[in-house]
């Protein structure tokens, strides 16, 4: 009857798993030099582990002695092929060619030495293991060479981990490092019995080294290791249980072992299927997340481009407006010089023409200023510069006196009841002038009969009320009154054909920038309008 010790199972399993994974990686992955170098490494590890199994499983010295050669040659070759694989992984095989030649030369020398008494003198039982090597005088060169290559490989991996910017490679290197610690750390304990007389406990870890590297070489995808681990665990269980069937001691034991094996076979298959399904689902979710992220990136980029275009458009508008203002200012300047006699006395007719010319140019400047302010509000730039000590009453009085002529020409009244006292407020005088001017000017423009009355009420806030007997507005128009530019009501177009539909929008923006508010009321078309402007006092 054959019974296997845990140590023997571990050696056999490492040989089987190593060969299986080497082939799996090679046939499932790309047929490149990297995967080939890993296949070579896996075969060598498999041969070494099979040699180990042969030595510890053999019951006769002659057979064990044969396996010992397989074990030693395999063991000597492991660092050589592993180093080759590692340098391929890092794409440094040419840079470290010298190191590879050294490992190959040292390995070849050790193989030759392996056939002499200097390497091993015989084999004998140790720690309950059937046979174990008795080292020769120069045997120590083998573990030293092994440790040296492992140390160099570890330094290379750590160095590359910090140097590389490739996230995928970084992830692989973590697995490689873990594999090296477990595998070579475990492998080095195989030298312990012959050097320190210590049991080779680390041999059990070597199988993990194969799993880690295979996973890292194949992919660096976290879900796949779950599949590989599940499959390996299940296969190992099946292997152990199938061996147990052959080692059954009686019919009852055989039936029990077959039953357990059948159950584990079924559940193992279900387990692998479940894990595969889960991995597929996760991959699907991950792909969807990637798609969503990509779509989000595209949208973000499109928004950014749109914002950029919008910004460029507004900057272009601002530049145009500045360039327009420069010659217009000169036109007004020249007309002033002509009017004040700097260029000599002008006749009456010329003076009249120059005055009209100056008025038109000033009107254009005002319009450009309004467009400029609107563009700046839309750009979100600071337009308002608040300063304390602004007398709103005096400001309205000034505007009213400017508009009085216009009202008188239309035959309507413009009344302003100046209050005895109102507090000074914080405001941008020039901008507030534009806002109030636009509102009062509008009221006059759209009033054909009656007139416009302006009042100031002093309460928690400063309230300016402009009531007119003009064309009034529908409810729909009232709702859009301050929100739109270049839009005007039909009645407004009939009453004042040249309006631009930007005055009230600008007035509203300026008042809002003063932390104030403006609203309009009208009983309906033809029934007049009232505008309420509120400005904070403090």
């Amino acid at each position, binding site marked *: 009857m054959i019974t296997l010790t845990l140590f023997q199972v571990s050696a056999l399993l490492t040989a089987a798993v190593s060969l299986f994974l080497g082939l799996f990686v090679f046939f499932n992955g790309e047929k490149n030099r990297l995967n080939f170098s890993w296949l070579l490494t896996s075969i060598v590890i498999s041969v070494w582990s099979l040699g180990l199994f042969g030595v510890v499983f053999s019951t006769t010295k002659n057979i064990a002695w044969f396996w010992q050669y397989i074990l030693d040659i395999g063991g000597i070759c492991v660092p050589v092929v592993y180093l080759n694989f590692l340098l391929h992984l890092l794409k440094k095989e040419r840079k470290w060619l010298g190191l590879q030649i050294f490992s190959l030369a040292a390995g070849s020398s050790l193989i030759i030495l392996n056939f002499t008494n200097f390497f091993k003198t015989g084999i004998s039982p140790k720690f309950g293991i059937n046979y174990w090597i008795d080292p020769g005088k120069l045997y120590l060169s083998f573990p030293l060479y092994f440790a040296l290559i492992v140390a160099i490989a570890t330094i290379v991996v750590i160095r590359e981990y910090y140097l590389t910017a490739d996230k995928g490679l970084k992830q692989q290197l973590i697995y490689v490092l873990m594999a090296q610690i477990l595998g070579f750390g475990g492998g080095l304990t195989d030298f312990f019995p012959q050097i320190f007389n210590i049991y080779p406990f680390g041999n059990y870890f070597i199988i993990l080294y194969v799993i880690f590297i295979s996973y890292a070489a194949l992919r660096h995808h976290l879900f796949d290791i779950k599949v590989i681990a599940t499959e390996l665990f299940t296969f190992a269980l099946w292997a152990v249980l199938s061996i147990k069937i052959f080692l059954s001691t009686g019919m009852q034991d055989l039936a029990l072992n077959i039953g357990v094996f059948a159950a584990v076979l079924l559940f193992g298959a279900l387990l692998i299927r479940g894990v595969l399904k889960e991995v597929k689902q996760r991959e699907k979710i991950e792909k969807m997340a990637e798609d969503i992220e990509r779509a989000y990136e595209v949208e973000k980029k499109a928004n950014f481009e749109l914002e950029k275009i919008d910004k460029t458009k507004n900057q272009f508008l601002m530049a145009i407006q*500045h360039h327009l203002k*420069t010659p217009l*200012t*000169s036109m*007004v300047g020249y007309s002033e010089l002509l009017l004040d006699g700097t260029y000599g006395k002008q006749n009456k007719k010329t003076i009249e023409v120059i005055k009209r010319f100056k008025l038109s140019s000033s009107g254009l400047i005002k319009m450009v200023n309004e467009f400029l302010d609107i563009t700046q509000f839309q750009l979100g730039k*600071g*337009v*308002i*510069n608040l300063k304390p000590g602004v007398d709103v009453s005096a400001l309205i009085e000034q505007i009213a006196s400017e508009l009085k002529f216009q009202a008188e020409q239309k035959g309507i009244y413009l009344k302003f009841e100046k209050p005895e006292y109102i507090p000074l407020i914080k405001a941008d005088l020039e901008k507030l002038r534009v806002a109030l001017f636009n509102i009062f000017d509008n009221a006059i423009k759209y009033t054909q009969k009656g007139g416009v009355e302006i009042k100031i009420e002093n309460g928690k806030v400063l309230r300016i009320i402009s009531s007119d007997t003009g064309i009034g507005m529908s409810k729909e128009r009232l709702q859009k009154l301050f929100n739109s530019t270049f839009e005007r009501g039909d009645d407004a177009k009939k009453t004042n054909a040249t309006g631009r539909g930007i005055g009230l929008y600008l007035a509203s923006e300026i008042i809002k920038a003063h932390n104030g508010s403006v609203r309009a009321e009208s009983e309906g078309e033809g029934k007049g309008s009232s505008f309420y402007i509120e400005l904070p006092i403090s």
Partner: protein
Amino acid sequence: MEKIDKKILIVEDDEDFCSILKIKFISEGFFVATAGSGEEGISMAEKEKPDMIISDVLMPKMDGIEMAKKIRETNKDVVIVFLTNIKEVDYTKAIEESGEFDYWIKSDLPIAEIVSKAKIKLGLK
């Protein structure tokens, strides 16, 4: 026409507006020098030793603000005023907060008022 013993340096890249200012200030009895850029403004300020500099802000090569700061390093007495069409708060606030320079808006002021304000600045009114 009575001469005023004050010299004005006008720094302005727009030839027309520069000429309008120059004619008006000369007609009011001032001595006038002109420059077309910030760089030229610095050399003219050193050469002409004006009592007042009236400068545009946006100009090629060197803008008015940079020019004014450079001139101020060596000349603490000259009155510097910016005469610009820029109303953006970012600019005007920065000039205002410096506390050193005044700024006037070109398109808001008749030419006669610019001269009048200059006279007040120079203590002539």
